């Protein structure tokens, strides 16, 4: 499904990704955790070429690319098989909720308007915003905007949806509505790669958790493997700091 081999990325002198291999199977939900600066967001953004990696290869579905030498055509092909949900929602301010969801279909995938509207409405209903089709982002709460963002990603029916800290900018009271939607689509078998700090959520929906630190994957495993029986010291230190209740052996 997605296979990334030996990806490297440096910002000037600062090496942020130091040779990472990741493999994600269809329908898998991968959660990436780790301290700030560990490269988790950079890894995600390299997948859809919002950052250009320095070296490495990726296979996405049936498309193969080399990160450094990818042509614009290849980049477009990759982007048209992925979708991203952003930390700051990034809804198109000059479009309504429905138009936001339809935009990628109509513009990038040449789907006829009527069909796109149909899909758009279904997706907005799915995330619980059936009554907000014609609302502009400026009229929606953060949680609602993020749900539109998720609907926008779902509508594209991508190989994988990339979530970049989807709840980090949200009011704590609005976090749960977004996590509920994410849990729902995870259970429907959508392939997801999620970068998050929401540990109990990670434990709840992940098939596999990757712990990144200093540009490498330190350890990975099922939620139980990691949270309860972490092997690496760095992993244990990180989890102890942010999930105190998981450091007890059960």
């Amino acid at each position: 499904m997605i296979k990334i081999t030996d990806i490297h990325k440096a910002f000037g002198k600062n090496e942020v990704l130091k040779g990472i291999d990741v493999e994600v199977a269809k329908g898998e939900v991968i959660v990436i955790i780790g301290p700030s600066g560990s490269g988790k967001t950079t890894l995600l953004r390299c997948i859809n070429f919002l950052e250009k990696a320095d070296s490495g290869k990726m296979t996405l579905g049936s498309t193969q690319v080399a990160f450094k030498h990818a042509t614009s055509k290849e980049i477009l092909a990759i982007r048209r098989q992925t979708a991203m949900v952003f930390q700051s929602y990034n809804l198109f301010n000059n479009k309504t909720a429905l138009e936001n969801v339809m935009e990628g279909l109509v513009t990038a995938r040449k789907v006829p308007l009527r069909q796109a509207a149909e899909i758009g409405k279904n997706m907005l209903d799915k995330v619980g915003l059936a009554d907000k089709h014609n609302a502009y982002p400026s009229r929606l709460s953060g949680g609602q905007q993020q749900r539109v963002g998720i609907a926008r990603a779902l509508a594209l029916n991508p190989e994988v949806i990339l979530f970049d800290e989807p709840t980090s900018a949200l009011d704590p009271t609005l976090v749960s509505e977004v996590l509920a939607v994410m849990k729902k689509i995870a259970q429907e078998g959508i392939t997801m790669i999620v970068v998050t700090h929401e540990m109990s959520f990670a434990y709840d929906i992940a098939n596999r958790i990757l712990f990144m630190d200093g540009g490498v994957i330190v350890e990975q495993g099922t939620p139980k493997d990691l949270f309860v029986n972490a092997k690496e010291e760095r992993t244990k230190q990180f989890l102890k700091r942010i999930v105190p209740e998981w450091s007890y052996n059960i």
Partner: protein
Amino acid sequence: MWGEAMEGFFNISLVVEALPQLLTRLHITLFLVVAATILGIVAGIIIALLRIYRIPGFNQISLLYISFMRGTPIIVQMFIVYYGLPAILSSVGININRWDKMIFLILTYGLNMAAFLAEIIRAAIVSVPIGQTEAAYAVGMTRLQTFWRIIAPQAVLMGLPSIGINIVGLLQDSSIAFLLGIVDVMGKARAIGANTYHSLEAYVGAAVIFLVITLLLEKVCATIERRLTMKIIGD
């Protein structure tokens, strides 16, 4: 005796008399403003995009150009274009002596506008949050699609108030165009003043016309801004 002295200084009925004569030349003033604005917007967009994409070479040239246009009096620019352009072109064998003076004026005012508008347009485009572009790319849109469908509408809304102000400024700047000899509203005012020895009333009449047009322009701009805001961000 008082009445006579006052009448000698300022006679409002002469202003009223001058107005219809001045209005016959209004279309010249308006034509100059509209044509220069169109040229200014087109050239302004090109310069703004050249600067945003940092095309090597063009960036330096356009900075120089903008500095010059914004830093020198427009009357100087006018004469440089009027006397300089034919001289330069004749040295390469192109004769433009037959060109209408209006062309020189539209060029001068248009290029001047472009310098101011380039900065406004560039700032407006750059002020659209980068997240908008990233979301568009992530959804699979090309650069061009992103610009036309997402960035440009939002940038237009940002830049409209400033552009409106610059058009009003252009209208005022056009008041010295008559120095090249065209007969617009100001040119007619000078002619009336020369004929009747009542220059003050003629220019006051011209001022009234300029004032009314400015007010109308501001009204139109405000309406356009309101409509676009409704349409573009539904507020």
